[in-house]
Protein backbone atom coordinates (compact mmCIF):
# COMPACT_ATOMS: atom_id res chain seq x y z
CA UNK A 1 0.00 0.00 0.00
CA UNK A 2 1.41 3.42 -0.92
CA UNK A 3 2.49 5.39 2.12
CA UNK A 4 0.37 8.38 1.09
CA UNK A 5 -2.77 6.29 1.04
CA UNK A 6 -1.96 4.92 4.49
CA UNK A 7 -1.43 8.44 5.84
CA UNK A 8 -4.68 9.54 4.22
CA UNK A 9 -6.58 6.72 5.93
CA UNK A 10 -5.52 8.02 9.36
CA UNK A 11 -6.52 11.63 8.69
CA UNK A 12 -9.64 12.91 10.34
CA UNK A 13 -10.48 15.34 7.50
CA UNK A 14 -10.62 14.82 3.74
CA UNK A 15 -7.35 15.69 2.05
CA UNK A 16 -9.11 16.54 -1.19
CA UNK A 17 -11.33 19.61 -1.33
CA UNK A 18 -15.07 18.90 -1.68
CA UNK A 19 -16.84 20.14 -4.81
CA UNK A 20 -19.28 22.15 -2.71
CA UNK A 21 -20.23 22.74 0.92
CA UNK A 22 -23.08 21.00 2.69
CA UNK A 23 -24.92 23.68 4.65
CA UNK A 24 -26.50 22.10 7.74
CA UNK A 25 -29.61 24.28 7.86
CA UNK A 26 -31.71 26.56 5.70
CA UNK A 27 -31.51 30.30 6.23
CA UNK A 28 -34.67 32.19 7.16
CA UNK A 29 -34.75 34.09 3.92
CA UNK A 30 -33.26 33.91 0.43
CA UNK A 31 -33.36 36.34 -2.48
CA UNK A 32 -34.02 33.43 -4.82
CA UNK A 33 -35.02 29.81 -4.16
CA UNK A 34 -34.35 27.35 -6.98
CA UNK A 35 -36.28 24.09 -6.81
CA UNK A 36 -34.34 21.29 -8.46
CA UNK A 37 -30.58 20.68 -8.34
CA UNK A 38 -30.11 19.46 -11.88
CA UNK A 39 -28.00 21.09 -14.54
CA UNK A 40 -30.59 23.77 -15.27
CA UNK A 41 -31.18 24.83 -11.65
CA UNK A 42 -27.46 24.85 -10.81
CA UNK A 43 -26.61 26.77 -13.98
CA UNK A 44 -29.25 29.37 -13.07
CA UNK A 45 -27.67 29.70 -9.59
CA UNK A 46 -24.21 30.03 -11.15
CA UNK A 47 -25.23 32.77 -13.62
CA UNK A 48 -27.27 34.62 -10.96
CA UNK A 49 -24.02 34.91 -8.99
CA UNK A 50 -21.63 35.52 -11.89
CA UNK A 51 -23.71 37.78 -14.13
CA UNK A 52 -26.00 39.52 -11.66
CA UNK A 53 -24.20 39.42 -8.29
CA UNK A 54 -27.14 37.69 -6.58
CA UNK A 55 -25.61 35.16 -4.18
CA UNK A 56 -28.23 34.77 -1.45
CA UNK A 57 -29.61 31.81 -3.37
CA UNK A 58 -30.67 28.33 -2.25
CA UNK A 59 -30.87 25.37 -4.61
CA UNK A 60 -33.20 22.77 -3.06
CA UNK A 61 -32.77 19.22 -4.36
CA UNK A 62 -34.91 16.40 -2.96
CA UNK A 63 -32.37 13.73 -3.88
CA UNK A 64 -28.71 14.30 -4.87
CA UNK A 65 -27.64 16.78 -7.54
CA UNK A 66 -27.94 15.57 -11.11
CA UNK A 67 -30.08 12.59 -10.09
CA UNK A 68 -32.97 13.38 -12.42
CA UNK A 69 -32.96 14.16 -16.12
CA UNK A 70 -29.42 15.57 -15.94
CA UNK A 71 -27.92 12.16 -15.25
CA UNK A 72 -30.38 10.18 -17.38
CA UNK A 73 -30.11 11.72 -20.85
CA UNK A 74 -27.88 10.48 -23.66
CA UNK A 75 -25.61 13.57 -23.35
CA UNK A 76 -25.97 14.81 -26.93
CA UNK A 77 -25.45 18.51 -27.71
CA UNK A 78 -26.54 19.90 -31.09
CA UNK A 79 -28.31 22.90 -32.59
CA UNK A 80 -29.77 21.58 -35.88
CA UNK A 81 -33.34 22.49 -34.97
CA UNK A 82 -36.08 23.47 -37.34
CA UNK A 83 -37.64 26.66 -36.05
CA UNK A 84 -35.79 29.94 -35.98
CA UNK A 85 -36.55 30.36 -32.28
CA UNK A 86 -35.29 26.85 -31.48
CA UNK A 87 -32.17 26.96 -33.65
CA UNK A 88 -31.11 30.36 -32.27
CA UNK A 89 -31.63 29.22 -28.68
CA UNK A 90 -29.77 25.90 -29.02
CA UNK A 91 -26.95 27.53 -31.02
CA UNK A 92 -26.40 29.94 -28.10
CA UNK A 93 -26.18 26.86 -25.87
CA UNK A 94 -23.60 25.17 -28.11
CA UNK A 95 -21.56 28.39 -28.05
CA UNK A 96 -21.52 28.33 -24.23
CA UNK A 97 -20.80 24.58 -24.14
CA UNK A 98 -17.67 24.95 -26.29
CA UNK A 99 -15.95 27.10 -23.66
CA UNK A 100 -17.59 25.56 -20.63
CA UNK A 101 -14.74 23.26 -19.53
CA UNK A 102 -12.49 26.33 -19.30
CA UNK A 103 -15.18 28.53 -17.72
CA UNK A 104 -15.94 25.99 -15.00
CA UNK A 105 -12.32 24.75 -14.74
CA UNK A 106 -13.52 21.16 -15.00
CA UNK A 107 -13.05 18.72 -17.86
CA UNK A 108 -16.53 18.03 -19.25
CA UNK A 109 -15.15 15.69 -21.95
CA UNK A 110 -16.93 17.86 -24.50
CA UNK A 111 -16.28 16.05 -27.74
CA UNK A 112 -17.47 17.17 -31.19
CA UNK A 113 -18.27 14.05 -33.17
CA UNK A 114 -20.54 14.99 -36.05
CA UNK A 115 -24.22 14.17 -35.79
CA UNK A 116 -26.07 12.14 -38.45
CA UNK A 117 -29.87 12.00 -38.60
CA UNK A 118 -30.50 9.09 -40.96
CA UNK A 119 -33.42 9.15 -43.40
CA UNK A 120 -35.03 5.86 -44.43
CA UNK A 121 -37.61 7.38 -46.77
CA UNK A 122 -38.00 10.25 -49.20
CA UNK A 123 -40.43 11.95 -46.83
CA UNK A 124 -37.81 11.82 -44.10
CA UNK A 125 -35.10 13.01 -46.50
CA UNK A 126 -37.30 15.97 -47.37
CA UNK A 127 -37.49 16.96 -43.68
CA UNK A 128 -33.71 16.59 -43.31
CA UNK A 129 -33.19 18.83 -46.37
CA UNK A 130 -35.62 21.36 -44.89
CA UNK A 131 -33.70 21.33 -41.61
CA UNK A 132 -30.37 21.70 -43.45
CA UNK A 133 -31.61 24.72 -45.39
CA UNK A 134 -33.12 26.41 -42.30
CA UNK A 135 -29.87 25.76 -40.41
CA UNK A 136 -27.69 27.19 -43.20
CA UNK A 137 -29.88 30.25 -43.35
CA UNK A 138 -29.33 30.77 -39.61
CA UNK A 139 -25.58 30.23 -39.87
CA UNK A 140 -25.61 26.75 -38.35
CA UNK A 141 -23.31 24.13 -39.87
CA UNK A 142 -25.65 21.48 -41.36
CA UNK A 143 -25.94 19.73 -44.71
CA UNK A 144 -27.81 16.98 -46.46
CA UNK A 145 -25.53 14.06 -47.36
CA UNK A 146 -25.93 10.90 -49.42
CA UNK A 147 -25.28 7.21 -48.63
CA UNK A 148 -21.68 7.30 -49.94
CA UNK A 149 -20.73 10.08 -47.53
CA UNK A 150 -22.36 8.20 -44.63
CA UNK A 151 -20.52 4.98 -45.48
CA UNK A 152 -17.21 6.84 -45.72
CA UNK A 153 -17.66 8.46 -42.29
CA UNK A 154 -19.19 5.39 -40.59
CA UNK A 155 -17.81 2.31 -42.39
CA UNK A 156 -19.40 -0.11 -39.89
CA UNK A 157 -22.98 0.92 -40.69
CA UNK A 158 -25.27 -1.37 -42.68
CA UNK A 159 -27.14 1.02 -44.98
CA UNK A 160 -29.57 -1.72 -45.99
CA UNK A 161 -30.49 -2.38 -42.33
CA UNK A 162 -30.23 -6.08 -43.18
CA UNK A 163 -33.50 -5.80 -45.05
CA UNK A 164 -35.40 -5.42 -41.75
CA UNK A 165 -36.03 -1.72 -42.31
CA UNK A 166 -36.25 0.54 -45.35
CA UNK A 167 -32.64 1.30 -46.42
CA UNK A 168 -30.89 4.53 -45.44
CA UNK A 169 -31.09 6.90 -48.42
CA UNK A 170 -29.40 9.98 -46.94
CA UNK A 171 -28.92 11.98 -43.77
CA UNK A 172 -28.80 15.38 -42.18
CA UNK A 173 -25.15 15.90 -41.19
CA UNK A 174 -24.37 18.38 -38.41
CA UNK A 175 -20.56 18.47 -37.80
CA UNK A 176 -20.67 20.40 -34.46
CA UNK A 177 -22.90 17.71 -32.87
CA UNK A 178 -21.14 16.71 -29.64
CA UNK A 179 -21.39 14.64 -26.50
CA UNK A 180 -20.35 15.70 -22.99
CA UNK A 181 -20.18 14.18 -19.51
CA UNK A 182 -23.57 15.21 -18.20
CA UNK A 183 -22.91 14.72 -14.49
CA UNK A 184 -19.77 16.85 -14.74
CA UNK A 185 -21.89 19.71 -16.10
CA UNK A 186 -24.05 19.60 -12.97
CA UNK A 187 -21.01 19.31 -10.68
CA UNK A 188 -19.14 22.11 -12.43
CA UNK A 189 -22.03 24.53 -12.12
CA UNK A 190 -22.60 23.43 -8.51
CA UNK A 191 -19.00 24.15 -7.58
CA UNK A 192 -19.03 27.50 -9.38
CA UNK A 193 -22.26 28.56 -7.67
CA UNK A 194 -21.05 27.36 -4.27
CA UNK A 195 -17.71 29.20 -4.56
CA UNK A 196 -19.66 32.44 -5.08
CA UNK A 197 -21.85 31.98 -2.02
CA UNK A 198 -24.95 30.11 -3.26
CA UNK A 199 -26.15 27.28 -1.02
CA UNK A 200 -26.86 23.80 -2.35
CA UNK A 201 -29.19 21.76 -0.15
CA UNK A 202 -29.49 18.09 -1.06
CA UNK A 203 -32.19 15.92 0.50
CA UNK A 204 -34.65 18.80 0.92
CA UNK A 205 -38.14 18.42 -0.60
CA UNK A 206 -40.44 21.32 -1.29
CA UNK A 207 -43.89 20.54 0.08
CA UNK A 208 -45.75 23.74 -0.78
CA UNK A 209 -45.25 27.24 -2.16
CA UNK A 210 -46.86 30.17 -0.37
CA UNK A 211 -48.61 32.64 -2.69
CA UNK A 212 -50.33 35.80 -1.34
CA UNK A 213 -52.21 38.26 -3.55
CA UNK A 214 -50.77 36.72 -6.67
CA UNK A 215 -47.14 36.91 -5.50
CA UNK A 216 -44.75 34.33 -4.06
CA UNK A 217 -43.94 34.88 -0.35
CA UNK A 218 -42.14 31.70 0.62
CA UNK A 219 -41.51 28.00 0.27
CA UNK A 220 -42.45 25.18 2.66
CA UNK A 221 -39.97 22.33 2.79
CA UNK A 222 -39.61 19.19 4.87
CA UNK A 223 -36.81 21.08 6.72
CA UNK A 224 -38.95 24.14 7.52
CA UNK A 225 -40.27 27.34 5.94
CA UNK A 226 -38.09 29.84 4.05
CA UNK A 227 -39.11 33.35 3.06
CA UNK A 228 -38.46 34.40 -0.50
CA UNK A 229 -40.10 36.50 -3.20
CA UNK A 230 -38.60 34.67 -6.17
CA UNK A 231 -38.89 30.95 -6.91
CA UNK A 232 -37.57 29.12 -9.94
CA UNK A 233 -39.04 25.71 -10.68
CA UNK A 234 -36.37 23.76 -12.59
CA UNK A 235 -37.61 20.23 -11.94
CA UNK A 236 -38.48 19.03 -15.48
CA UNK A 237 -40.31 15.72 -14.97
CA UNK A 238 -41.69 16.85 -11.61
CA UNK A 239 -43.05 20.17 -12.86
CA UNK A 240 -46.66 18.96 -12.70
CA UNK A 241 -46.18 18.40 -8.91
CA UNK A 242 -44.89 21.96 -8.47
CA UNK A 243 -47.39 23.74 -10.73
CA UNK A 244 -50.22 22.27 -8.64
CA UNK A 245 -48.76 24.00 -5.52
CA UNK A 246 -49.22 27.43 -7.12
CA UNK A 247 -52.44 26.59 -8.99
CA UNK A 248 -51.04 26.93 -12.52
CA UNK A 249 -52.35 24.89 -15.44
CA UNK A 250 -50.09 23.84 -18.30
CA UNK A 251 -50.09 21.39 -21.23
CA UNK A 252 -47.32 19.29 -19.66
CA UNK A 253 -47.72 15.52 -19.64
CA UNK A 254 -45.05 13.17 -18.33
CA UNK A 255 -43.76 10.19 -20.31
CA UNK A 256 -40.75 8.03 -19.43
CA UNK A 257 -37.95 7.70 -21.99
CA UNK A 258 -35.59 4.77 -21.75
CA UNK A 259 -31.93 4.42 -22.57
CA UNK A 260 -29.18 1.86 -22.16
CA UNK A 261 -25.42 1.39 -22.30
CA UNK A 262 -23.50 -1.62 -23.55
CA UNK A 263 -20.28 -3.04 -22.20
CA UNK A 264 -17.24 -0.89 -23.11
CA UNK A 265 -15.63 -1.44 -26.51
CA UNK A 266 -12.45 -0.10 -28.12
CA UNK A 267 -13.21 3.22 -29.86
CA UNK A 268 -14.81 2.51 -33.24
CA UNK A 269 -17.79 4.86 -33.52
CA UNK A 270 -16.83 8.51 -33.78
CA UNK A 271 -20.12 9.93 -35.04
CA UNK A 272 -23.44 10.28 -33.26
CA UNK A 273 -25.93 8.16 -35.19
CA UNK A 274 -29.63 8.97 -35.04
CA UNK A 275 -32.42 7.31 -36.94
CA UNK A 276 -35.68 9.18 -36.68
CA UNK A 277 -37.59 6.29 -38.26
CA UNK A 278 -36.17 3.67 -35.89
CA UNK A 279 -36.39 6.07 -32.93
CA UNK A 280 -32.83 5.23 -32.01
CA UNK A 281 -29.76 7.29 -31.25
CA UNK A 282 -26.35 5.80 -30.62
CA UNK A 283 -22.99 7.25 -29.64
CA UNK A 284 -19.83 5.89 -28.06
CA UNK A 285 -18.86 7.50 -24.78
CA UNK A 286 -15.30 8.35 -23.78
CA UNK A 287 -15.36 5.19 -21.63
CA UNK A 288 -16.12 3.12 -24.73
CA UNK A 289 -19.69 2.20 -23.86
CA UNK A 290 -22.31 2.57 -26.54
CA UNK A 291 -25.01 4.89 -25.24
CA UNK A 292 -28.37 4.39 -26.90
CA UNK A 293 -31.72 6.02 -26.38
CA UNK A 294 -35.20 5.47 -27.73
CA UNK A 295 -38.44 7.37 -28.18
CA UNK A 296 -40.96 8.03 -25.43
CA UNK A 297 -42.84 5.20 -23.77
CA UNK A 298 -46.29 5.05 -25.36
CA UNK A 299 -48.42 6.30 -22.49
CA UNK A 300 -48.22 8.78 -19.63
CA UNK A 301 -46.42 7.52 -16.55
CA UNK A 302 -44.52 9.27 -13.74
CA UNK A 303 -42.18 6.38 -13.06
CA UNK A 304 -38.54 5.62 -13.82
CA UNK A 305 -38.85 1.86 -14.16
CA UNK A 306 -37.35 0.34 -17.27
CA UNK A 307 -38.83 -2.53 -19.24
CA UNK A 308 -37.69 -5.66 -21.11
CA UNK A 309 -39.80 -4.56 -24.11
CA UNK A 310 -37.56 -1.56 -24.48
CA UNK A 311 -34.28 -3.48 -24.25
CA UNK A 312 -35.53 -5.97 -26.86
CA UNK A 313 -36.70 -3.35 -29.35
CA UNK A 314 -33.62 -1.20 -28.84
CA UNK A 315 -31.24 -4.12 -29.30
CA UNK A 316 -33.08 -5.03 -32.52
CA UNK A 317 -32.76 -1.53 -33.91
CA UNK A 318 -29.08 -1.25 -32.94
CA UNK A 319 -28.42 -4.51 -34.79
CA UNK A 320 -30.34 -3.26 -37.85
CA UNK A 321 -27.79 -0.44 -38.09
CA UNK A 322 -24.70 -2.29 -36.81
CA UNK A 323 -25.23 -6.06 -37.24
CA UNK A 324 -21.96 -7.04 -35.52
CA UNK A 325 -23.30 -5.76 -32.18
CA UNK A 326 -25.15 -9.07 -31.79
CA UNK A 327 -22.42 -10.38 -29.48
CA UNK A 328 -22.26 -7.29 -27.28
CA UNK A 329 -23.89 -7.27 -23.86
CA UNK A 330 -26.16 -4.57 -22.47
CA UNK A 331 -24.77 -3.35 -19.13
CA UNK A 332 -27.42 -1.02 -17.76
CA UNK A 333 -30.78 0.38 -18.74
CA UNK A 334 -32.80 3.11 -17.12
CA UNK A 335 -35.62 5.58 -17.66
CA UNK A 336 -35.90 9.34 -17.23
CA UNK A 337 -38.99 11.51 -17.04
CA UNK A 338 -39.85 13.77 -19.97
CA UNK A 339 -42.25 16.65 -19.42
CA UNK A 340 -43.67 16.94 -22.90
CA UNK A 341 -45.27 19.98 -24.50
CA UNK A 342 -47.55 19.70 -27.55
CA UNK A 343 -45.22 21.83 -29.69
CA UNK A 344 -41.94 20.19 -28.56
CA UNK A 345 -40.55 23.50 -27.28
CA UNK A 346 -39.78 24.30 -23.63
CA UNK A 347 -41.85 26.46 -21.27
CA UNK A 348 -39.62 29.16 -19.81
CA UNK A 349 -39.80 32.50 -18.05
CA UNK A 350 -42.33 34.51 -16.10
CA UNK A 351 -45.79 33.25 -15.18
CA UNK A 352 -49.09 34.79 -14.08
CA UNK A 353 -47.81 34.54 -10.48
CA UNK A 354 -45.46 37.34 -9.51
CA UNK A 355 -42.06 35.87 -8.57
CA UNK A 356 -42.78 32.35 -9.82
CA UNK A 357 -40.57 31.40 -12.76
CA UNK A 358 -40.79 28.24 -14.83
CA UNK A 359 -37.96 26.37 -16.51
CA UNK A 360 -39.90 23.36 -17.74
CA UNK A 361 -41.16 21.42 -20.72
CA UNK A 362 -37.73 19.92 -21.24
CA UNK A 363 -39.06 16.71 -22.75
CA UNK A 364 -36.28 15.08 -24.72
CA UNK A 365 -34.19 18.21 -25.37
CA UNK A 366 -33.11 19.42 -21.91
CA UNK A 367 -29.44 18.52 -21.50
CA UNK A 368 -28.21 20.36 -24.60
CA UNK A 369 -29.94 23.53 -23.36
CA UNK A 370 -28.39 23.47 -19.87
CA UNK A 371 -25.98 26.46 -20.14
CA UNK A 372 -28.24 28.80 -22.07
CA UNK A 373 -31.28 27.97 -19.93
CA UNK A 374 -29.37 28.79 -16.78
CA UNK A 375 -28.07 31.98 -18.38
CA UNK A 376 -31.46 33.13 -19.70
CA UNK A 377 -33.38 32.20 -16.54
CA UNK A 378 -30.83 34.04 -14.36
CA UNK A 379 -31.38 37.14 -16.51
CA UNK A 380 -35.16 36.73 -16.26
CA UNK A 381 -35.10 36.29 -12.48
CA UNK A 382 -32.70 39.16 -11.88
CA UNK A 383 -34.47 41.68 -14.11
CA UNK A 384 -38.06 40.38 -13.95
CA UNK A 385 -38.12 40.59 -17.74
CA UNK A 386 -37.91 37.57 -20.05
CA UNK A 387 -34.58 37.23 -21.85
CA UNK A 388 -34.95 37.79 -25.62
CA UNK A 389 -33.95 34.21 -26.45
CA UNK A 390 -36.73 32.68 -24.34
CA UNK A 391 -39.56 35.15 -25.05
CA UNK A 392 -41.17 32.77 -27.60
CA UNK A 393 -41.20 29.97 -25.00
CA UNK A 394 -43.43 31.64 -22.38
CA UNK A 395 -46.31 29.65 -20.87
CA UNK A 396 -48.67 32.32 -22.20
CA UNK A 397 -48.23 30.98 -25.76
CA UNK A 398 -50.83 28.33 -24.95
CA UNK A 399 -53.51 30.91 -24.16
CA UNK A 400 -52.51 33.17 -27.07
CA UNK A 401 -52.47 30.37 -29.68
CA UNK A 402 -48.83 31.20 -30.45
CA UNK A 403 -46.94 27.90 -30.33
CA UNK A 404 -43.43 27.15 -31.60
CA UNK A 405 -43.77 23.83 -33.50
CA UNK A 406 -40.34 22.25 -33.13
CA UNK A 407 -40.13 19.25 -35.45
CA UNK A 408 -36.37 19.01 -34.95
CA UNK A 409 -36.80 17.58 -31.42
CA UNK A 410 -35.53 14.08 -30.69
CA UNK A 411 -38.89 12.42 -30.12
CA UNK A 412 -40.56 13.65 -33.29
CA UNK A 413 -40.85 11.04 -36.01
CA UNK A 414 -40.40 12.37 -39.53
Amino acid at each position, binding site marked *: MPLNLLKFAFRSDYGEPRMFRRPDRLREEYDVVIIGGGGHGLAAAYYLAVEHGITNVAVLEKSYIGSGGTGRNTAIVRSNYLTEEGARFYQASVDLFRDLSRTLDLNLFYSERGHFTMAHSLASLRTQRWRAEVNKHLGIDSQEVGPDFIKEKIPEIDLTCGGHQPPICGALYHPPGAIARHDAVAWGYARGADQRGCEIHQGVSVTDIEVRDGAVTGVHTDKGFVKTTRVLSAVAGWT*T*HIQKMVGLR*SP*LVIHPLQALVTEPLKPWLNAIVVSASLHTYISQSSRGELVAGASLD*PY*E*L*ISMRSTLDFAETMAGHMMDLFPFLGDIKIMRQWAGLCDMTPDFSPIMGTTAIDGFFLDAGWGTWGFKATPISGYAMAHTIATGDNHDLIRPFNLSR*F*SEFDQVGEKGAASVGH
Partner: protein
Amino acid sequence: MKILTCPVNGPRPIQEFTYGGEVRDMPCPDTSTDTQWADYIFNRTGEPGVRREWWHHGPSGVWFVAERDIIGDNVLKTYLWSARETP
Protein backbone atom coordinates in the same frame (compact mmCIF):
# COMPACT_ATOMS: atom_id res chain seq x y z
CA MET B 1 -46.03 -8.68 -19.87
CA LYS B 2 -48.41 -5.98 -18.80
CA ILE B 3 -52.08 -6.84 -19.12
CA LEU B 4 -54.98 -4.45 -19.62
CA THR B 5 -58.59 -5.59 -19.35
CA CYS B 6 -60.76 -4.56 -22.27
CA PRO B 7 -64.41 -4.39 -21.16
CA VAL B 8 -65.43 -6.31 -24.31
CA ASN B 9 -62.51 -8.67 -24.98
CA GLY B 10 -61.22 -9.31 -21.46
CA PRO B 11 -57.54 -9.27 -20.36
CA ARG B 12 -55.18 -8.63 -23.30
CA PRO B 13 -51.44 -7.71 -23.59
CA ILE B 14 -50.80 -3.95 -23.35
CA GLN B 15 -49.22 -3.98 -26.85
CA GLU B 16 -52.73 -4.41 -28.32
CA PHE B 17 -53.85 -1.06 -26.92
CA THR B 18 -53.33 2.57 -27.81
CA TYR B 19 -53.44 5.34 -25.25
CA GLY B 20 -55.92 8.12 -26.01
CA GLY B 21 -55.26 10.74 -23.32
CA GLU B 22 -57.33 11.81 -20.35
CA VAL B 23 -61.12 12.03 -20.44
CA ARG B 24 -62.01 15.71 -20.64
CA ASP B 25 -65.28 17.62 -20.86
CA MET B 26 -65.53 19.92 -23.86
CA PRO B 27 -66.88 23.38 -23.07
CA CYS B 28 -69.57 24.60 -25.44
CA PRO B 29 -67.68 26.08 -28.45
CA ASP B 30 -70.41 28.70 -28.99
CA THR B 31 -70.54 30.12 -25.48
CA SER B 32 -67.02 29.54 -24.07
CA THR B 33 -64.49 32.37 -23.92
CA ASP B 34 -61.15 32.19 -25.78
CA THR B 35 -59.42 31.50 -22.46
CA GLN B 36 -61.73 28.59 -21.63
CA TRP B 37 -61.33 27.19 -25.13
CA ALA B 38 -57.51 27.50 -25.05
CA ASP B 39 -57.52 25.77 -21.65
CA TYR B 40 -59.54 22.90 -23.15
CA ILE B 41 -57.36 22.64 -26.28
CA PHE B 42 -53.92 22.79 -24.65
CA ASN B 43 -53.92 22.25 -20.90
CA ARG B 44 -53.87 18.81 -19.31
CA THR B 45 -53.96 17.28 -15.86
CA GLY B 46 -50.37 16.09 -15.90
CA GLU B 47 -50.06 15.78 -12.12
CA PRO B 48 -49.81 12.45 -10.29
CA GLY B 49 -52.94 10.68 -9.10
CA VAL B 50 -55.78 8.53 -10.40
CA ARG B 51 -57.20 9.66 -13.72
CA ARG B 52 -59.87 8.67 -16.20
CA GLU B 53 -58.31 7.97 -19.58
CA TRP B 54 -59.33 6.83 -23.07
CA TRP B 55 -57.84 3.57 -24.33
CA HIS B 56 -58.34 1.86 -27.68
CA HIS B 57 -58.17 -1.89 -28.28
CA GLY B 58 -56.63 -2.09 -31.76
CA PRO B 59 -57.69 -5.53 -33.01
CA SER B 60 -61.37 -4.98 -32.19
CA GLY B 61 -61.57 -1.18 -32.42
CA VAL B 62 -63.15 -0.76 -28.98
CA TRP B 63 -62.71 2.60 -27.25
CA PHE B 64 -63.17 2.47 -23.48
CA VAL B 65 -62.32 4.29 -20.25
CA ALA B 66 -59.65 3.17 -17.77
CA GLU B 67 -59.14 4.60 -14.29
CA ARG B 68 -55.38 4.50 -13.77
CA ASP B 69 -52.89 5.72 -11.17
CA ILE B 70 -50.20 7.39 -13.30
CA ILE B 71 -47.44 7.01 -10.70
CA GLY B 72 -47.88 3.30 -9.93
CA ASP B 73 -49.32 2.41 -13.36
CA ASN B 74 -52.10 0.47 -11.61
CA VAL B 75 -55.38 0.24 -13.52
CA LEU B 76 -58.24 0.37 -10.99
CA LYS B 77 -61.06 -0.38 -13.42
CA THR B 78 -62.04 -0.28 -17.08
CA TYR B 79 -65.50 0.21 -18.56
CA LEU B 80 -67.29 1.33 -21.68
CA TRP B 81 -68.30 4.98 -21.94
CA SER B 82 -71.93 3.92 -21.94
CA ALA B 83 -71.44 2.11 -18.63
CA ARG B 84 -69.88 5.10 -16.80
CA GLU B 85 -71.36 6.35 -13.56
CA THR B 86 -73.05 9.65 -14.29
CA PRO B 87 -73.22 12.03 -11.37
